[in-house]
Structures are given as C-alpha cells and as structure tokens.
C-alpha cells in the first residue's frame, strides 16, 4: 500500500498534535537496494557536513548509492534540514569479533555520527525501510516527502504534541535503529533510569526526547539479547508483582526472572506504543492504561491506532474493532 491511506488516517487525529512534528515509516520501499542499509540523514548544511559522513561510511564499507531524498516545498513547512539517503554495505571483516558484524557496524556508525553533532543526524538505518519525518503537521510532512510515492507493506505514522522538550525534526517520531521503528503516545517517566541503562550498552541518546530510548531498548533486547519481541515487551511493561505472585509456579518463576533481569529497562508513565520491524508489528500500553489503543482487523490487515476513527478512515469496512487490556501486547506477523 502507498502512503496516502495512513496520511489520511493520521490527519483524523490532528487534535492530538501541535504541528511541531510528524513522521512516517514504511517497510518494503527500497526493493532495488534491499541488501543495503538505507541510511536516512538530516544535514544542517550539505556542503559542510556531508563530506564527514561520506568519509566515515567509506571507512567502514561501501556506499552503493546516495542521493537527496526527494522533497517538495510546502508553504507551512520550513526545510531546516536537508534529508539525504545512503544505500550502504558495511564491510563485515572490519568487525571480526562480532556475531552480527554488519548490524553492529551500522549501529555504531549511527551512534558515532549522531553523538559527534557535526550537523548530521542518522534517523533511519534499516534495510528496505525508511523513516520520513519533519517539524510540521502530518499532511504537510506527508506532502513534503510525497509519501504516496512509496509502496510499503507495513506503515507506522505519528503526530507529535511535544510537552516536555522542544519540537524539532530529530525529535519527531518514528524513531528507528536498524530494523525496528517505534511510535509512542505518552511520556516515559522512567526515561532517566532507562537512558542510564541503555547507555551502559553503548547506545547514546541524542534526540532530546524520551521515545528514542524505546527504540534502543528493543534493539538491545531483541537483536542483541535474542528475546522474542513479545518477551521483550513483557520486560519493558511487566505485570505487577501482585499479578506475578498469583501465577502458577513455572510462569511465576520466569516472569520474576525477566522482571528482575530487566528492572532498569522497565518503563513507567503513560504510554501506548507501536513498534515494527520487517516481519512484525506490535502494540502495547502501560499497565494502568493511561493512553488509548484501538485495534482493527480486516482480512489479513492489522491496524493499531489511538482512535477508532483513524482506522475507519483507512478501512471503512473494518471487520473487528477491539480495545486490548492494559499491558497486553497485540502482535501482527507478516505472512511469509
């Protein structure tokens, strides 16, 4: 499906935004370069900042192709950054000690470029996936990138209402690292704890907002620690101790172990989160349900949204609408 449907769905919920950030991510949009990591970069000044990124990438692999991400002027959107994309193949021989050298190189490069703050920010780094975001209303951001020109099989989108930090392009959702992308409604009040924890594993938070940490936590738990995504979500939003105490023994034991092991990864505060990678889409809320989440199904399509109206805007004949219980993840798998 192209991006026009989700653009329309997102615009149903403009009451939830403030025009300071919106974004989209689509999976399956770069079939010609599906073996390359697609790096989406914001340059502050293309002449000054690009050569540094070019050199860094060339040092760690091969740039198969790079180009400006096509954009189209919008009257209500000031282009404060230049969006660029690289299709990059890392050289695995440069990380011989790693079991997943290519992912590790790209992840480390992303952290290095973003931490250097030299006018370049890598905000999307997976294969056959791309984030398109900017400061503005959902329709303006969609039209700025003409997202209807992209054909993807999984789409996430977000309309931002920044409350605790300033709105800027890098702070718009989705947040992505390698395969996983995240959109979030709410606030992670445990951000300080989560950030200290994740930074001890070599991640660096550079986007000035809480949701970034969720993308890195999922990368750590799923890619590096090998947890299934539903288990990773259970670590991030575990059952209350009283619920764990009521479980049968075997279940109680592993839930206790998971919660103790990942105590600093546990997220507090209000949240409804949807995350996706190439094969999965998962939605979950905080354990006391302080944010809404509605799930729709129609044929083999799964919709997760803050409001039912957005789902019906995209799928007027939706077959089922449900509101999952707090903390109960909803998982969709891409059929092989």
């Amino acid at each position, binding site marked *: 499906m192209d991006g026009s449907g989700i653009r329309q769905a997102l615009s149903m919920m403009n009451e939830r935004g403030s025009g300071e950030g919106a974004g989209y991510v689509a999976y399956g949009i770069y079939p010609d370069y599906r073996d390359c990591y697609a790096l989406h970069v914001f340059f502050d000044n293309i002449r000054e900042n690009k050569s540094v990124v070019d050199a860094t990438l060339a040092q760690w692999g091969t740039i198969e192709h790079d180009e400006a991400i096509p954009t189209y002027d919008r009257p209500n959107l000031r282009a404060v950054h230049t969006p660029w994309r690289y299709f990059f193949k890392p050289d695995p021989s440069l990380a011989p000690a790693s079991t997943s050298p290519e992912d590790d190189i790209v992840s480390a490069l992303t952290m290095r470029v973003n931490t250097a703050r030299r006018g370049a920010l890598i905000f999307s780094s997976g294969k056959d996936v791309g984030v398109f975001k900017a400061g503005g209303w959902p329709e303006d951001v969609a039209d700025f990138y003409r997202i209807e020109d992209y054909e993807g099989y999984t789409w996430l989108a977000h309309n931002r209402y920044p409350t605790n930090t300033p709105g800027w392009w890098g702070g718009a959702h989705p947040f992505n690292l390698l395969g996983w992308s995240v959109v979030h409604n709410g606030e992670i009040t445990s951000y300080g704890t989560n950030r200290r924890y994740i930074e001890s594993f070599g991640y660096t938070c550079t986007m000035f907002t809480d949701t970034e940490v969720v993308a890195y936590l999922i990368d750590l738990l799923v890619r590096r620690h090998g947890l299934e995504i539903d288990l990773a979500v259970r670590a991030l939003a575990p059952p209350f101790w009283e619920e764990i105490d009521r479980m049968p023994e075997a279940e109680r034991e592993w839930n206790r172990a998971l919660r103790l092991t990942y105590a600093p990864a546990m997220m507090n505060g209000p949240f409804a989160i949807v995350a996706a990678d190439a094969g999965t889409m998962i939605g979950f809320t905080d354990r006391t349900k302080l944010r*809404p989440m509605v799930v729709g199904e129609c044929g083999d399509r799964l919709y997760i949204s803050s409001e039912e*109206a957005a789902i019906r805007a995209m799928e007027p004949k939706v077959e089922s*609408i449900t509101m999952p219980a707090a903390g109960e993840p909803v998982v969709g798998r891409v059929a092989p």
Partner: protein
Amino acid sequence: MAKQVAIDGKGVHYTPLNQRIRKAVEDGADEIVVSNVLGQRFIGDGLRGNVTVRIYGVPGGDLAIFMSGPTVIVHGNAEHAPGNTMDAGKLIIHGNAGDAVAHSMRGGKVFVRGDIGYRGGIHMKQYETQCPILVVGGSAQTFLGEYMAGGLLIVLGLNGPIKAREIGSGIHGGEIIIRGDVDAACLATGATQVPFTDEDRARIAPVIREYAGDFGLDPEPLVSADYTRIIPASARPFVGKYTWE
C-alpha cells in the same frame, strides 16, 4: 409536527458541526440527525434544550461534554470520555465506548449497550438533586468508579463477567452496583461491599427498566437479578496519605 433537521457530518470539523447543531436547536428542531460522523470530538458541547440528536458513525472523544438537557443517541461506538462533565440530559450509546466514560459527570444519564474501557465513571459527583447515572450493558475495565464522589454506576455484565480490577479506587461518594458476584480481591482500597437490599432494588428498578426499554431488552430478569453493591469505606479515603493531622 416534530421538526427534523439532517446534517451530513462527512469531513466537517467539529467546530462548524457544533455550530450547525446549535443553530438547528435555536431554530426549534426537535430531532437532529447527524450522519457520516467520524472522529469529530466535542459533539453536543454545552448543548441545551429539549432536542434529540441522533449520531450515525463513530464520534470522537468528549461527546456531549457539558451537555445540559438534550438526548444524544449514538448508533456506533464512542471514543474516550463520552458524557464528560455532563450536567443533565441523556446519552445513549448503542456500541462500545472508550476510557473514562462519564468523566466527572454531574447529572443526567449515560447508557452504554456494549463494553466500556478503563476508569469508567471517574470522579462522578452529586449535589442535592443532581445525581448522575451511568449504566453499562457489557463489561467495564479496571479502575471502575475511580475517585468517585457521587452518583450511581451500574454494570450489567451482559457479555460475560466483568473484567475490572481495582474497582472504586479512591471512591468517597456514590455507589457502584454490579450484576452478579464480584471477587473481593477486585475491590480497591477504600471501596467496600455491602448487602444489596430490597430498598436498593426498588431504587434501581426504574433505571434498569428505562435502560432495557432504550435497548429493547427484557427488563424483568435484570430487575430481579442478584447484584453486588460497592460503596466508599470512608468519605475521606486519602486522609493521612498526602497530609497529616
């Protein structure tokens, strides 16, 4: 003859939509039919008068907020906080509703045929003759009647057992009446179960009959069913929690 006004809500923002509804009421409409509603919030905001508003589609959050008098009938689901701070009148929802149904409601009735989300009846309140009533046909989720300060909240559980835990968390006024038994472990601190008496039954019977009439249900089995009554254990549940005397 009753005056009917039709409004097509397709793609209309809630501000002009509400202006058109208010204009129709001013012009003496008895019934307003709003079709193709999708996600518009605040429909019926502060609306007064004797009018009936029929909504076809899925209205957005805060439906009938501050409403004082009219009847709003929704042929579809509702989103968060329908009946928010409603003052008088009636809201009938033929589908399900989201979280915080009847939020801070201070008068009138909200009848939901299906399930409601979390925090149903949060901070409902009453004063002298003002006593809000929320009746849910299906199930209610956790934190039902949270911080409830007054009013009557009934859950009929017609679609199976109630899912709510932490019922009446911080309740300090009003009452929650649930059809069937409720596990005491599902009650929050500050809420307490008391016997459901014949006087209680006589008091809720007219409400149940009205609800059943609105949805075409047989009222008598519901009137004669067993109920659990939950009330505040204290009028000041948080004394000593935030301040010390």
